C-alpha cells in the first residue's frame, strides 16, 4: 500500500512474517507456509495443507489453529487490521486436523487467493499473539524481531529454526535516513552496507563509477494526480480530460524523477494479465486543453486551484512545481500547499478536503484490490469520491467472475473507462533502486516479485 517514507524501515520488518501463500516472478499464486492449496469447483471452498514443522519465533510449531486465529484476527476490523474485507465473504474457517485449514465462502470471491498472497492478509502468526504484534512482531519469517524505534531504527536477528533454512545474515539493522545526501554519504563512507532509494539524479553517476552495486527494478510504485470529484469543476469530464492534456507525463517524469520510471496510462501491474496495453496517454495539448476548459465554461483565469502535495515525497513537490508552469499556460492558476504526511492524511485521505493532490501507491498487482478499493464508490481508498456507476458495476462483476480470462477483460474495460473519464490522471510507474557495498551478496533475491517487499533471507555479506 502506502510507503511510509522513502527510506521506510517497514519493508525490512516484513521479514519477520511469512504468508500462507505468495506469488512467483510471474505473479502466479504459489504455496508458502501452506504446502499446497486447492479450490472447490464451485469456487466457494479453499483447502490449505500446511507445511509440517514450521516454527514460530516463540518456538511453537505452526498448526491449523494458528492459521484460523490469524485469519479471524485479520477479518476483524476492530483489531485495526487493514485487510479485513478480504475475508468479507468468509462463512467459516474449519480445522479438521492440525495441518489442514478449510475456508468456506458464502459467495464467490474470485480474488480471495491472490489477496491472501498480497500485502499481509495471508500472514500467519502464533495463536494469541495479536496483542503483542504491534510492539513486538512475532511470526514465522527468516528473521526475528529484536527492537524498533519509530522513525529511526529496526533491528532483526536471524531465526535459526526458519522452515526454509536459516538466513545467511546474523542481523539486519535498518535505519531511516531521510536526507538523500546523508544516506548516500553513509553508503559511500562504508557506514552503511546498503541503502534503499538512491537519489534519482545519482543513479547514473554511481553506476558509472562502478564502485558500488546498484540494483534497479521496475516497478516500485505508481503515481497519479488526484482530482476531487466533489469539487464542482471536476465533476465535468471535460475539465478532467483537459487537465490530463495539460500534463506532459514524460517531461514530468524526467523533471521529478530524473527519468527513473516509465509513464503509463493504467495503474495495473505492467506484467499482469489484466494490464490494458492498448491505452496510450493523451499527449500534451495545452491549446486543446484551453479549448476544452472554455467549452466547459472555464475560460482562462477563471480556475484557481490549490494543489496539496506532501513533503513526505519530495518528488511530488518537484512535480507540483512543474505542473504550476503548465497550468499557468493553460490559464489555470495552481497554488501549491505543502503538507506533512500527517496533515496530508488527515486533510486529503480522511476529510477529503482538497481540490487536487498527488499520491503514489505500491504496485497492487491484484486487480480487485486495486480497482475496487480505489475506484469503486464504496472503495476503502476512494478518497477522491469517484462515483462512476459503470466502474462500480464492473468491479462488482469481476468479484464474482471466476474465469481468469474473463476477469482480465472486465478489468481492461475498467481501465478504458478510467482513461476515458479521466477520473484521475495516471502518471507513471517508478523504479525501485538499492545501492550496496561490493561486499553484499545475493542482491538478485532481495526484491519480492511484487516489487515492494525486501527479502533478506538469501542475502549475505562477504568478508
Amino acid at each position, binding site marked *: 500500500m502506502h510507503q511510509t517514507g522513502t527510506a521506510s524501515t517497514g519493508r525490512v520488518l516484513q521479514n519477520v512474517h511469512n504468508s500462507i501463500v505468495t506469488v512467483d516472478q510471474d505473479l502466479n499464486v504459489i504455496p508458502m507456509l501452506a504446502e499446497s492449496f486447492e479450490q472447490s469447483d464451485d469456487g466457494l471452498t479453499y483447502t490449505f495443507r500446511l507445511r509440517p514443522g514450521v516454527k514460530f519465533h516463540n518456538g511453537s510449531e505452526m498448526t491449523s489453529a494458528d492459521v484460523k486465529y490469524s485469519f479471524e484476527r485479520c477479518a476483524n476490523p476492530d483489531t485495526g487490521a487493514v485487510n479485513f474485507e478480504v475475508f468479507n465473504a468468509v462463512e467459516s474457517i474449519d480445522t479438521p486436523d492440525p495441518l489442514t485449514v478449510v475456508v468456506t465462502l458464502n459467495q464467490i470471491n474470485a480474488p480471495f487467493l491472490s489477496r491472501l498472497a498480497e500485502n499481509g492478509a495471508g500472514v500467519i502468526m502464533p495463536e494469541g499473539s495479536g496483542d503483542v504484534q504491534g510492539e513486538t512482531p512475532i511470526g514465522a519469517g527468516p528473521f526475528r524481531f529484536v527492537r524498533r524505534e519509530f522513525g529511526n531504527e529496526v533491528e532483526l536477528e536471524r531465526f535459526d529454526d526458519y522452515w526454509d533454512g536459516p538466513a545467511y545474515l546474523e542481523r539486519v539493522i535498518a535505519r531511516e535516513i531521510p536526507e538523500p*545526501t546523508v544516506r548516500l554519504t553513509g553508503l559511500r563512507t562504508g557506514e552503511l552496507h546498503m541503502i534503499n532509494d538512491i537519489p534519482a539524479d545519482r543513479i547514473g553517476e554511481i553506476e558509472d563509477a562502478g564502485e558500488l552495486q546498484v540494483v534497479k527494478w521496475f516497478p516500485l510504485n505508481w503515481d497519479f494526480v488526484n482530482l476531487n470529484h466533489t469539487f464542482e469543476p471536476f465533476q465535468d469530464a471535460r475539465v478532467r480530460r483537459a487537465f490530463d492534456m495539460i500534463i506532459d507525463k514524460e517531461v514530468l517524469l524526467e523533471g521529478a524523477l530524473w527519468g527513473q520510471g516509465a509513464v503509463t496510462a493504467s495503474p495495473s501491474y505492467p506484467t499482469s494479465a489484466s494490464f490494458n496495453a492498448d491505452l496510450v496517454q493523451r499527449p500534451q495539448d495545452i491549446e486543446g486543453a484551453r479549448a476544452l476548459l472554455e467549452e466547459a465554461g472555464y475560460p482562462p483565469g477563471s480556475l484557481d486551484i490549490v494543489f496539496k502535495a506532501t513533503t513526505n515525497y*519530495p518528488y511530488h513537490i518537484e512535480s507540483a*512545481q512543474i505542473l504550476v*508552469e503548465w497550468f499557468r499556460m493553460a490559464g489555470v492558476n495552481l497554488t501549491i*500547499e505543502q503538507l506533512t504526511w500527517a496533515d496530508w492524511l488527515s486533510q486529503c485521505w480522511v476529510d477529503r478536503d482538497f481540490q487536487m493532490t498527488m499520491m503514489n501507491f505500491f504496485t497492487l498487482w491484484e486487480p480487485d484490490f486495486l480497482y475496487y478499493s480505489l475506484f469503486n464508490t464504496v472503495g476503502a481508498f476512494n478518497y477522491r469520491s469517484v462515483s462512476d456507476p459503470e466502474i462500480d458495476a464492473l468491479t462488482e462483476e469481476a468479484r464474482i467472475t471466476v474465469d481468469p480470462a474473463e476477469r482480465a477483460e472486465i478489468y481492461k474495460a475498467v481501465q478504458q473507462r478510467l482513461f476515458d473519464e479521466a477520473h484521475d490522471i495516471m502518471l507513471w510507474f517508478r523504479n525501485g533502486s538499492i545501492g550496496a557495498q561490493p561486499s553484499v551478496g545475493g542482491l538478485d533475491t532481495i526484491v519480492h516479485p511484487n516489487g515492494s517487499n525486501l527479502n533478506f533471507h538469501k542475502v549475505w555479506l562477504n568478508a
Partner: protein
Amino acid sequence: MRGFMTGKGLLGGGIVITMLLVAILAPLFIPDTFATRMDMRARLSGPSLDHIFGTDQLGRDLFYRVVLGAQTSVMIAGAAVLMSVVIGLPLGIISGYYGGVIDNVLMRLVDTLLSFPALLLALTISAVLGPNLTNTIIAIGIAFTPFLARIIRGEALRVAQMPYVEAARAAGTTDLKMIIRHVLPNIMPAIIVQGTISLAFAILAEAGLSFLGLGTQPPDASWGLMIQASRDYLDVAPWTALVPGAAVAITVLGLNMFGDVLRDVLDPRTQT
C-alpha cells in the same frame, strides 16, 4: 551622519540599501515567471552566459530566482520583525515604564515564552496555521516577540529612571506625552539596532522553516527555500546553494554591520 562614512558604514549601508532596492525594484522590471521558468535540458547547469548564476534542479535560472526571491525574503523578514516590534513595543513600554504588578505579570509571561525555542514556537505556530506566506510571517513574528518585548522593557525601564523623565514629570508631563516625547525617542536606537539584527535572524528562521517544509511554498522563490532545495545537490551543483547562500550571508553581514554603525550614529553624543 558622518558615522556612515566609515568603511564599515559604507559597506553595511551599501549592502542593506542594495538589497532593499533589489527587493523593491526587481519585481517591477522582471516578470515573476522568470523565477519559475524551467528548462529541462539545462538542469543543474553551472554558471554560463545563458545563466550567469547557473540553474537549479528544475533548470530554473538562479539569477532570476535569487533576485526575485529577495522580495519574498526581505518581506517575510521585514514584516515579521515589524510585527514583533508592533506587539513587543507596547508590552515592553508598559512593562518597563509602569513597572509593578503589570510588569511582573507581563515579564513572567515573556520569560515563559522565552523558554520555548523560537524555532520550535514558529514551527508549532506554522503547523497550527498551515503553511503560506502570511502564516510564516505571523509564526516568525510571534516567535520573535518575547525577545523584542524583553529588550524594549529593559530600555524603557532604563529610560523611565532617567532624571530627564523625572524632570518632565515634575514639569507636569502626562504619562502618554512622557512616553511619546521622552521614552520612545530614547529607546528607538536600541529597537532599531535590535530590529536590524532580528532581520538577519528572521531570514535564517525562514530558511529553517523551509527546511522543515513550512515557510515559503514552492515554486515561489525565497532565499531560504532555495538553500533548502539545494541541499540534495550541494556536492554536484554547489552553485545552487552558494548563490542563495551568498545572498543570505551578505545580507546578514550587511545588516549586522549596519546595526553596529546605526548604534554609533544614533547615539546623539557622536552626532555632529
